[in-house]
């Protein structure tokens, strides 16, 4: 039994553009994620972080390389990998509870009849864990963005996936709601031991939540650097940590790295040059 939940070996993805040209979105991406680990992917826009997540989810096939989940290759999506999208992924015609239970109505999961009763109990548990009990019969359209994402996370957790993939899940939320969601995620992790791969453009969010942050560089998308976060274990982190010097230092270093990979000079240098050129 391997302790590696996810193993990427020289993964590449090439898209054909409308003009017929080929565009390399990812080249030679290799890394592993251990069981129970929380890894965040950050990087300048266009670095292919969302593309990478889609390959692991099985939504798109990789062009080269190999992706193993718990040591096994796969084709297409599978119940051991769940995904949380940024927004608009809930089913507006279903109540909160039915959204969470949606996967149970699918044929692929109906074979698991014996689990049906336990699934209801699990849905109940997730409602409780995510603070959704009061809105269990409401339609998603009447919920706030934060509440909708709680439902999306609960839905992804229903089948107890080995690997939870999150694609900028809080990207559409305001700063306050996002903080609440961060602590909620840490709280959920305390009771649900899951391996998580988390894509975000928010470096503070990545440092606060993750055990390890991977910086991707664009053109073509590749791994730039890997940053182990030596802060207290995720379950012991609190919002005060965001003001701690070691937290700020880690965030600053990673941000500087991302800026370097984006091919831009620091803002000041760029502004000075712009001012000179305009004169």
């Amino acid at each position, binding site marked *: 039994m391997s302790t590696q939940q996810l193993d990427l070996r020289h993964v590449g993805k090439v898209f054909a553009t409308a003009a017929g040209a080929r565009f390399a979105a990812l080249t030679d991406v290799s890394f592993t994620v251990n069981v129970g680990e929380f890894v965040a992917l950050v990087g300048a826009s266009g670095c292919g972080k969302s593309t990478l997540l889609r390959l692991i*989810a*099985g*939504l798109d096939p990789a062009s080269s390389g190999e992706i193993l989940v718990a040591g096994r290759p796969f084709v*297409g*999506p*599978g*119940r051991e*990998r*769940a*995904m949380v*999208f*940024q*927004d*608009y*992924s*809930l*089913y*507006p*015609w*279903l109540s909160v509870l039915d959204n969470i239970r*949606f*996967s149970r*109505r*699918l*044929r*692929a*999961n109906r074979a698991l009849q014996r689990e049906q009763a336990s699934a209801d109990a699990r849905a109940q548990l997730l409602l409780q864990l995510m603070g959704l009990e009061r809105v269990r019969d409401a*339609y*998603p*359209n*009447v919920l706030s963005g934060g509440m909708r994402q709680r439902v*999306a996370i609960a*839905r*992804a957790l229903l*089948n107890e996936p080995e690997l939870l993939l999150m694609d900028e899940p809080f990207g559409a939320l305001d700063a306050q709601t996002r903080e609440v969601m961060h602590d909620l995620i840490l709280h959920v992790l305390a009771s649900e031991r899951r391996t998580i791969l988390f894509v975000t453009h928010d470096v503070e969010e990545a440092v606060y939540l993750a055990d390890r942050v991977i910086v991707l560089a664009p053109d073509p998308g590749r791994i730039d650097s890997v940053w182990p976060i030596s802060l207290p274990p995720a379950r012991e982190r609190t919002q005060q940590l965001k003001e701690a010097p070691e937290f700020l230092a880690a965030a600053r270093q990673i941000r500087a790295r991302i800026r370097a990979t984006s091919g831009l000079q620091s803002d000041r240098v760029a502004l000075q040059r712009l001012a000179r050129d305009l004169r």
Partner: protein
Amino acid sequence: MSSFALWLAAWWTVTGSGLVDPLFLPSPPAVGHRFVQWISQGDLLADIRISVIRVLAGFALSAVMAVPLGLLIGAYRPVRAFCEPLLEFARYLPAVAFIPMVLLWVGIGEGSKIAVIWIGTFFQMVIMLSEDVARVPMPQIEAARTLGAAEHEIVWRVLLRSAMPAMFDTLRITWGWAWTYLVVAELVAANSGLGYAILKAQRFLQTDRIFVGIIVIGLIGLGTDQLLRWSQRRLFPWAAARS
């Protein structure tokens, strides 16, 4: 409601002032009188009935064919690539110009009116319905895939369910067009129905009768539209918060 009152008041004022020849614009009392007379002595109700039946039949035929086809076109890219050019061509075919051909093909019976309504509504309906389906947000589809949905489950459980309120709206809009084509068909090739009654009134310069026909059609349209809107709110309460 107040907009209706305003129109009625304006109409009444203009006709009451004597500035306009009643032949060009009959007054509201004259139209009302004609309406009562047409119901009590004539065959207004029979005309309404046959017209409603024709619209229902033509519209239902269109919808029964367009809903599954629109769903398939919206769901499957190859089906779209195959059908779309033909549909885009067909929807510009003037339904009215087809009337002589329709008479040749289907004869002068009820089939010809239904065929004209079908030609006028079907192609537009398919294209609009397929766009309703194509507008279903991608994350809804991909979330279903990651949760283990098979291809047909995505079509039935996600695309159809998600697009249903928009599709219902499309049907409500095309229902109005079906009435337009009904009147066209009845003006040209019928010996009953509201359109035919209007044509007959035209021959005898009974402008008040023409007005009754037009207003009755308008009221039927307004009534059914309200009914459809009401059913939409009842059928899809979850979509209400959006508007």
